[in-house]
């Protein structure tokens, strides 16, 4: 390859198109430099700088929402920019800001390095933003692995705690296994799409590009290797979103991981998986007869398993993990509906948004209620929350109510939109399973609210073996504002969505 060709290729790179990701990367590096340069007693400023920097990038992204790169492919077809990508960028930035805010009180209880936590959270966020905009399987794989390897570190971040390390090891084994499945699927797709005897003229050289793969699948609607590849790719992603039968890692990893990381896993990682699944609906659409049954069975099993397994949990982190599995099931119903009716895509995005808002309200309360041992958060610890701190109890009740889908909170509208989309798509069986799931979920969500609000409630387990009610930190004013804002957003989005739903559905 000659030099001119390389120069021409480099000149075509539109760095402006990935400006938010580049700025996140620079911010992450800047934090590490600050740690070296600042004197030790000034290190308290670094989290503030991390949060402010991310807020600045979020504002910049919002101002530039209709950037000139929309609808174009950049970097030789590696990335494609559209409004879905812009929405997910804002979504991930919100997630990482909230995770960083949760990180401050959570890290304060531990003897661990501080700066690297924010560094890795920011890097992972940038990678997730690239992941949802990728239009090429190499880009998808590399971005996904950046996210996954970042999570290995974050999950085992409280390294003096054996539970955190054990969760890290389990996530490592499961994550690497799922990445291998995904990779093998990609290799099969590459193999058939690039096959000189089968491929369309000119497509062989771009065998990992989504557009070429779609064209190939349309031309060859019954190729065995392509089917194997598609199933393996779906299995790899199902691991990330925690869908049955790939959900085994969820309770252990959610329990052992530091609470802010659990939040990032529950919201960010899951949303990234669903954004990829939605992006792939366009690619795999010609193989609808294969993909829809696979995803439908997965969705039904996920809803039932998540809700039934959550019934028996007393550790709130396991509880929220398993309830998150059931939420993945409802979202999968939306993805299946998206194969029939593109309007369902908007419903899935709206569901993800209300899930983010409600989850972070709950995780915020969890961060404050938990003691020094981050993995030990039982329902008993909430016993006197309403008396000790009425504000946190209200935030918890509204967050959990929204997760359960109680009207008039935002979670109800989110579920309603997904169910309406499923109804329009004619998925009556899945709809029935989902409604049964919602009814079951009300039991354990209200068990948690009951534990927090009614002081005389005592669990079936005796108090021995559970540590003493943990000493609670004073809730800072800023943190109160954030939690209050999330709660108010949950209530407002429940009664008034403005132009959000048409806007999300229009694209």
């Amino acid at each position, binding site marked *: 390859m000659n030099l001119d060709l390389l120069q021409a290729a480099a000149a075509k790179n539109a760095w402006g198109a990935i400006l938010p990701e580049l700025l996140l990367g620079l911010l992450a590096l800047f934090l590490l430099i600050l740690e070296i340069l600042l004197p030790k007693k000034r290190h308290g400023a670094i989290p503030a700088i991390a949060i402010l920097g991310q807020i600045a990038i979020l504002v910049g992204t919002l101002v530039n929402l209709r950037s000139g790169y929309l609808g174009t492919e950049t970097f030789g077809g590696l990335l494609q920019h559209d409004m879905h990508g812009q929405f997910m960028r804002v979504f991930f930035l919100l997630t990482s800001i909230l995770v960083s805010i949760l990180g401050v009180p959570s890290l304060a209880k531990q003897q661990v390095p501080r700066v690297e936590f924010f560094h890795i959270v920011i890097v992972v966020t940038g990678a997730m933003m690239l992941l949802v905009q990728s239009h090429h399987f190499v880009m998808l794989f590399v971005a996904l692995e950046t996210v996954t390897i970042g999570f290995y570190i974050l999950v085992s971040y409280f390294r003096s705690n054996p539970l955190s390390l054990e969760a890290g090891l389990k996530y490592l084994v499961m994550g690497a296994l799922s990445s291998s499945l995904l990779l093998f699927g990609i290799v099969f797709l*590459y193999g058939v799409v690039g096959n000189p005897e089968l491929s369309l003229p000119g497509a062989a050289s771009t065998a990992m590009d989504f557009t070429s793969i779609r064209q190939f699948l349309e031309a060859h609607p019954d190729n065995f290797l392509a089917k194997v590849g598609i199933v393996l790719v779906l299995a790899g992603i199902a691991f990330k979103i925690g869908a049955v039968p790939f959900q085994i890692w969820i309770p252990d990893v959610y329990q052992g991981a530091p609470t802010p990381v659990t939040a990032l896993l529950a919201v960010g990682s899951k949303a990234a998986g669903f954004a990829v699944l939605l992006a792939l609906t366009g690619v795999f659409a010609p193989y609808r007869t294969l993909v829809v049954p696979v995803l439908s069975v997965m969705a039904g099993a996920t809803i039932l398993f998540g809700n039934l397994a959550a019934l028996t949990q007393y550790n709130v982190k396991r509880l929220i993990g398993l309830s998150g599995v059931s939420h993945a099931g409802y979202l999968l119903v939306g993805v299946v509906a998206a194969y029939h009716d593109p309007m369902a895509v908007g419903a899935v995005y709206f569901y993800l948004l209300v899930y983010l808002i409600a989850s972070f309200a709950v995780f915020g309360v969890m961060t404050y209620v938990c003691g020094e041992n981050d993995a030990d958060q039982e329902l008993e610890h909430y016993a006197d929350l309403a008396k000790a701190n009425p504000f946190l109890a209200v935030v918890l009740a509204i967050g959990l109510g929204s997760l359960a889908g109680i009207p008039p909170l935002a979670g109800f509208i989110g579920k309603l939109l997904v169910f309406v989309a499923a109804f329009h798509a004619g998925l009556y069986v899945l709809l029935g399973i989902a409604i049964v799931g919602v009814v079951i979920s009300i039991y354990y969500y209200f068990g948690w609210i009951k534990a927090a609000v009614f002081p005389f409630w005592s669990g079936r387990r005796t108090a021995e073996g559970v540590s003493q009610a943990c000493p609670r930190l004073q809730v800072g004013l800023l943190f109160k504002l954030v939690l209050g804002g999330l709660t108010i957003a949950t209530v407002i989005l429940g009664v008034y969505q403005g132009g959000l739903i048409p806007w999300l559905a229009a694209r």
Partner: protein
Amino acid sequence: MSVTLNDYLLVSVLMFVVGFFGVLMRRNTLIVYMCLELMLVAATLALVAFSRYNQTMDGNVFVFFILTVAAAEVAVGLAIIVALFRRRHTVQLDELNALKN
């Protein structure tokens, strides 16, 4: 007798299956870890074989990315295993079961 694409794919699938069941069945963390690497290598072998057969370079370039990712994964993974061994003095998965109901 010449070695064809199918032979490469057969070896690759065999390696992948060995690795997959190794991860599920072996109880020693380090062996599980080797099996994970075996799966990545299996995918790489299939990729190179396809790349050669298809006469395109994409597959060969992708191999570099996979190797880089695998190296990063090993670095983080071994660090976690070492840290866990220091705390618990074991690398047997059966004994690493503090997280449960």
